[in-house]
């Protein structure tokens, strides 16, 4: 049983407000021999400085940066220790200090958290958060084994050597506990891969059907290949500033709030505990939730995601996420992890997660669309870049720049693609004010929940 003391539950508070003003990304590919990783980082960095309509010359903006946080997940993938130093030098940012961040799948979110803390504390007025991953130096099965070393090597890695086999038991348990059809999971894969069709950055866009997903080859029962995310190469970055600098650089900054939570690396070690309630949840509402022999979070939910949301909603003043948010970008590494997260972050009460999809709320044009970027299933999971890429997409959506960054024929061409004739804009409405993104590691070992709030 995990219990908290008062100090553990203090809600983080910045010493001064922090804003996101610009973002950049590369396209993502399974195999990307065209560029070295620092070259890809430079391409994202240039897009951030040059194409975000900042009110200052790109090199002048660069001249304001005085701290960098760099996320990359796995040194053994690209077999290069201290890659941060190579990228930092390549971007021409020496001798400014940089910190390398490693938090599994939550590396991107954690990198932004680190850069935000630098600005909030006063260490920096302008901080760069950049991330990347190069996952194409080894074959796919070896890549899967590498990722599975982010399970406990003594007790769980040998049980599958593939991460889908750690999420699949959760899918079976979740389906049993809350009576969820496989169709709901398949709809998530169909939705996110379809949205990826509008993205020039997407690695595996596709117009699939539910039947096709469910008839596809199995990775670990019940997760089919189309329910599992991409293994990618690519890079993304964002620029964070204090309030004064933010408005010097743009008329359209977004204030940022971000907190994290953690839980055990082994699912085995998730001890039962009481559910920490979100602001709009009430005592006793979960009394009937669990079947006999079940426990919370069990294998059904993520304490780390719930705790991160618990903090971030209080930090950002969110009461009802479904009503107050306008876009979410979730960590859909697997269809099941996406589905589980709906309850953790309060898009639905626990036990009713599937209704977020089945009601249509999660779709473009719905009440609270999710993963219009194409997510990890459709667009990318270059792990160290992922949580940053998601934030970039949230920023551009709030700034009404979806078409600028997804519909421009030149961007498609730059990445060797042709813009589809039936290209569809996924721009959220102008009145939209707040977007949330989740960066998620392991089987829920680290999770950050970030919120961008339109500040103009």
């Amino acid at each position, binding site marked *: 049983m995990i219990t908290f003391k008062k100090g553990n539950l203090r809600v983080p508070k910045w010493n001064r407000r922090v804003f996101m003003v610009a973002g950049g990304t590369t396209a993502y590919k399974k195999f990307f*021999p065209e560029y070295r990783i620092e070259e890809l980082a430079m391409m994202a960095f240039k897009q951030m400085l040059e194409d975000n309509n900042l009110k200052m010359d790109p090199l002048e903006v660069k001249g304001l940066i005085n701290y960098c946080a760099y996320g990359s997940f796995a040194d053994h993938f690209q077999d290069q220790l201290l890659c941060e130093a190579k990228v930092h030098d390549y971007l021409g940012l020496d001798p400014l200090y940089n910190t390398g961040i490693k938090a599994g799948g939550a590396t991107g979110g954690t990198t932004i958290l680190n850069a935000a803390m630098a600005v909030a504390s006063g260490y920096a007025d302008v901080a760069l958060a950049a991330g990347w991953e190069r996952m194409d130096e080894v074959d796919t099965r070896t890549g899967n084994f590498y990722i599975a070393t982010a399970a406990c090597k003594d007790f769980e890695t040998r049980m599958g050597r593939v991460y889908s086999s750690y999420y699949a038991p959760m899918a079976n348990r979740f389906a049993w506990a809350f009576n969820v059809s496989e169709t709901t999971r398949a709809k998530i894969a169909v939705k996110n891969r379809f949205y990826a069709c509008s993205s020039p950055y997407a690695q595996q866009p596709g117009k699939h059907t539910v039947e096709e997903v469910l008839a596809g080859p199995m990775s670990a029962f019940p997760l089919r290949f189309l329910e599992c995310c991409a293994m990618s190469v690519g890079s993304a970055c964002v620029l964070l500033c204090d309030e004064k600098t933010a408005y010097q650089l743009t008329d359209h900054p977004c204030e940022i709030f971000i907190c994290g939570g953690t839980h055990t690396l082994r699912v*085995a070690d998730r001890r039962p505990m009481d559910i920490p309630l979100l602001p709009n949840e009430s005592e006793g509402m979960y009394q009937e939730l669990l079947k006999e022999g079940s426990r919370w979070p069990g294998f059904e939910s993520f304490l780390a995601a719930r705790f991160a949301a618990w903090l971030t909603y209080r930090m950002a003043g969110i009461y009802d996420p479904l009503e107050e948010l306008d876009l979410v970008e979730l960590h859909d590494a697997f269809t099941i992890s996406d589905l589980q997260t709906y309850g953790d972050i309060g898009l639905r009460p626990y036990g009713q997660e599937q209704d977020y999809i089945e009601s249509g709320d999660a779709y473009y044009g719905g009440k609270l669309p999710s993963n219009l970027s194409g997510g990890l299933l459709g667009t990318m999971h270059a792990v160290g870049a992922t949580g940053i890429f998601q934030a970039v997409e949230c920023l551009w959506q709030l700034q009404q720049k979806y078409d600028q960054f997804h519909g421009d024929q030149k961007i498609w061409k730059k990445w060797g693609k042709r813009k589809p004739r039936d290209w569809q804009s996924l721009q959220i409405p102008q009145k939209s004010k707040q977007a949330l993104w989740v960066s998620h590691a392991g089987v829920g070992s680290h999770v950050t929940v970030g919120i961008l709030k339109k500040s103009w």
Partner: protein
Amino acid sequence: MQKTKFIGQVTKIKQTEPQTVIEWPRTLTHIHTYGLLSPFFQGLKEGRLRATFCPNKKCPENLLWIPPRAHCPDCHTEMKWKTLRNPVIGKVYAFTEVVYAGTGIELSTPYWQIDVQIPGLTTVPKSYLLYGKPYIGMKVKAQFRTDKPTNTVLDYYWVPVE
């Protein structure tokens, strides 16, 4: 005058378009310790499932741990060992059939990976089912690879209780 010689293997070029891509061979063996959990792995080879518990009477956590820990995460007291009495009977809490496994997999695919609730444990350890098809709540019995052990956590597994 002694000249420096190239004593390596010539690096293979995998492709030259759109850019030059080379092969970079890596083979390695890590020397890894089981540390204070060594008795657990030794126990498996002897047909015993060993758990740890916190002996601190004031500690809120009084249940058993598998995977074991040498220190209690709640009060930091050094844990003590307890051998579970055979036959160890548990219930399947969650499961999957591993169809596509990563490089180095040591079990023949497909196989059933199961997470088992064992009476008295605060944890739900992950293992595998030797035969049969699991369902949530299925009763299973622990067995051990005492003959030709692998010296890993794969030295125990579960079979259905008939």
